[in-house]
């Protein structure tokens, strides 16, 4: 489970770890504790906030952030970043409604097509970064522009007739429906939390991801196909953004322009709160999921206190910077 720590020369005896946990697992714990604290404060301010219904509502919204953050985490773990998420998510939502036209019989086709588009765009990001050597910020920022332009141009600024369609009832049911009293979207997210955690911690693919994030050159020398892994990770990020787009349009019914915009920053914030090092190589998705929940819970509390929309933007920025200062510092000083 733990990272293979590069064999260090005899080091001074390490400080006794808190509860026998290493720094990374402590961050997961912090993120979870933060979520509990926010819920407790919320319940104190607004009775009923921490009721099962209240918690479930927060978790449902957190699941969208959490899904996008899963892809972002994959990419950040190798020291990259995906700035193309807003456009990919938005394009996915629009593609789903325009390809299905709200018809259940075309839902499977539409969902497959949308996921394939997300993965394909992510793949292009990966090719640009890994093979053409374009810096990740530039590649994904440019991809965001490219997808946004195509999305606006092809849909005529979302004025096309098909653009007004609703998501197929099946997709809407997949978000709003319940199994054993749990919202289906939450069940989907729970499954993804388990799968992503297992993939990252117990598979060779996960090992390779951490290895590249820690040292790409050493990973290459150790026989890892760095470009291939990088491309796959960016493709996964695109896939998760598209999945979030599908669920969001199922949640809201219709697609709109700008629906992906908040998710770029929220996904990065969730990753940072969850203890993922922005320099790569460190962090777990379990922490990110807890980070997504605490951020969404915090926003919800503030909304019940009538904090305006812009307050959230300011607060997220401050929280991220504070956490970065707390544990995101670069080790080497120049």
């Amino acid at each position, binding site marked *: 489970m733990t990272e293979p720590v590069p064999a260090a020369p005899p080091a001074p005896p390490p400080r006794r770890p808190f509860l026998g946990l290493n720094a990374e697992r402590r961050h997961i714990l912090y993120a979870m504790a933060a979520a509990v604290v926010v819920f407790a404060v919320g319940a104190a301010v607004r009775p009923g906030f921490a009721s099962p219904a209240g918690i479930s509502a927060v978790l449902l919204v957190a699941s969208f952030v959490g899904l996008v953050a899963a892809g972002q985490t994959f990419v950040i773990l190798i020291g990259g970043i995906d700035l193309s998420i807003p456009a990919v998510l938005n394009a996915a939502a629009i593609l789903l409604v325009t390809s299905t036209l709200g018809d259940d019989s075309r839902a499977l086709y539409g969902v497959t097509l949308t996921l394939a588009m997300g993965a394909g765009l992510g793949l292009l990001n990966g090719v*640009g970064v890994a093979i053409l050597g374009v810096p990740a910020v530039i590649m994904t*920022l*440019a991809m965001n*522009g490219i997808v946004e332009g195509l999305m606006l141009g092809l849909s005529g600024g979302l004025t096309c007739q098909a653009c007004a369609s609703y998501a197929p009832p099946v997709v809407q049911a997949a978000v709003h429906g319940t199994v054993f009293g749990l919202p289906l979207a939450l069940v989907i997210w729970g499954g993804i939390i388990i799968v992503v955690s297992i993939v990252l911690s117990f598979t060779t693919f996960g090992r390779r991801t951490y290895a590249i994030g820690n040292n790409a050159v050493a990973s290459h020398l150790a026989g890892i196909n760095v470009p291939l892994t990088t491309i796959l990770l960016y493709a996964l990020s695109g896939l998760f953004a598209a999945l979030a787009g599908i669920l969001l349009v199922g949640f809201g019914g219709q697609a709109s322009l700008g629906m992906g915009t908040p998710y770029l920053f929220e996904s990065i914030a969730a990753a940072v709160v969850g203890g993922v090092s*922005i320099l790569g190589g460190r962090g777990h998705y379990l922490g990110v999921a807890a980070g997504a929940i605490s951020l969404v819970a915090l926003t919800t509390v503030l909304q019940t206190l009538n904090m305006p929309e812009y307050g959230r933007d300011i607060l997220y920025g401050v929280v991220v*910077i504070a956490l970065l200062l707390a544990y995101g*510092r*670069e080790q080497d000083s120049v």
Partner: protein
Amino acid sequence: MPPSPPATSAAPQRRTNQVLLRSLAQNFGLVLAWLVLIASIAIYAATYYAQLSALPGSFEITSTVNNTMPLVLTGLGQAIVILTRGLDLSVGGIIDVTNALAALYLGTTLTSVVLGTIGILVVGALLGLVNGALVAIGRLQPIVVTIATLSIYQGLAIMILPQPGGAIPPAFSSILVNSGAPWALVYCGAFALLWMVLRRSRLGVSIYAVGNDPASASANGISVVRTRLIAYVLSGVASAAAGLFLAASATAGDATAGNSYTLTSIVAVVLGGVSLFGGRGSGIGAIAGALLTTMIVNILFFSHVDPLYQSFYEGLFLVVAVVLTMAIGRLVKRRRT
């Protein structure tokens, strides 16, 4: 680093050629940017002529360059930051804040306008200082820091000016943009001159040194922290000036007016031949890159391309420009070693 010239008795003529060649190779991106800009202006004039059977006149030139001025300013700021191996994604947010402030507080009297302008530039410097302090003193990654401050600044801008509106004193607009002649070209020239001065100043040398190798720069007595701080402050001031210019041409404020500049400022800098890895490039290239970005949009407009596709082409040009400059850079390196 260019290889040292052969220490033999080369004829003076040959040496001059070598010096010329080397300086051409070093400034390749800059030269290329200006060549592409000239070509794009020619294409623009041609498409314009094809549409309207006349060449663009003083009015078109004035409005085109005026529209580019905010991008020229942001691009210059972004270039300074990128030269120090940084990145400033918050420029759009700083434009938003300063644009909103301009709409509310410029007033109508001469003193209020002058004081307001200075005050807004100071606000830009302070917002840049926050970025710089977090990156240089806090030792945080520039990308994440400036994404976070972008979110904060955008929120602040909407807090200051919830709805587009406010007023810009007409005199302020007429001085900056409605002067009937392409004065903005003169501003561009002045900025280019200013850049040449900066390039040769102590600060300019520090900026390039830090971008090339922070450790050696530090070993040579350059304060890396201070240089990076100043770079982000300058970027903040440049973005504030862009916000003022944008307010002057729109004659009203909009708290989201600057959002697109985060992408386009990087496009302008990259098209202008500035290396994203720091230490290579020139602000004069960034000016060319900004003008080139506008030219591309104008050419697309006169070629009847739907303006909705604009960000598609901007993104595409960004990737193509980065890939091409890297390929050319690799070629030049191979030729010289």
